[in-house]
């Protein structure tokens, strides 16, 4: 019974867990010089208009990279695209595996990003 529960739990988790390789992602991110804008720790961007990436959800980061790449390729008609002169160029040279790895690496880093649940129905004060 316990084994079944664990298996079910793992199955459930796998819907949000990606297959990215953190170590390969770290190498690829360094190679693409992502830090030159997003900061060496990926939580201190050099300009306030650039996002903090460290600790962001892996699947969101992956979706975003794919959207940047899609904007410059034949896939342009697909659902979502995101246009940015710098990121479009950066993502253009990445394979799906590269994007998965980079997303896994960035998501694994410690950062200030958080979810702050709040309910308008429950008074906390």
């Amino acid at each position, binding site marked *: 019974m316990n084994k079944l529960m664990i298996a079910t739990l793992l199955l459930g988790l796998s819907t*949000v867990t990606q297959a990215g390789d953190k170590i390969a992602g770290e190498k690829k991110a360094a190679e693409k010089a992502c830090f030159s804008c997003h900061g060496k720790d990926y939580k201190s*961007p050099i300009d*306030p*208009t*650039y*996002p*903090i990436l460290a*600790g*962001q*959800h*892996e*699947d*969101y980061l*992956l*979706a975003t990279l794919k959207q940047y790449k899609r904007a410059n390729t034949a896939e342009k008609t697909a*659902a*979502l*695209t*995101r*246009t940015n002169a710098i990121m479009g160029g950066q993502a253009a040279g990445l394979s799906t595996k590269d994007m998965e790895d980079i997303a896994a690496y960035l*998501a694994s880093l410690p*950062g*200030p*990003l*958080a*979810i*702050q*649940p*709040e309910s*308008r129905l429950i008074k906390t004060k």
Partner: protein
Amino acid sequence: MMRRMTTAVLLLGALSAIPTQAQTEIKGQISTGAEKNAMCIGCHGIAGYQVIFPEQYRVPMISGQSEKYIYNALQAYKKSERKHPTMRAIAVSLSDQDMADLAAFYAHNGKTATSATTPK
């Protein structure tokens, strides 16, 4: 000579107008932003919340994100430069001041709260 001087004066005037414009940039109020986020919390305030249309992924964590980045993202959604249909629908209803207030609120939201949750 006179015309050249007039041009120079005009140019000077035009140049000095640039920094003035930058100074009048909208300033976000954290406390006001906290009252305007009713449309945000239904997704961004729920741990692990996933958007499923048109792609499936967890919505980004925005508490603690760069203020200016959040402001620009909202503006980009309003102008359709960023495409997410739900975010666009929300952004078109926001004024520049609303966006600045929400950006200020969320940029500082992670820094003051004690019960931050970051599920992986």
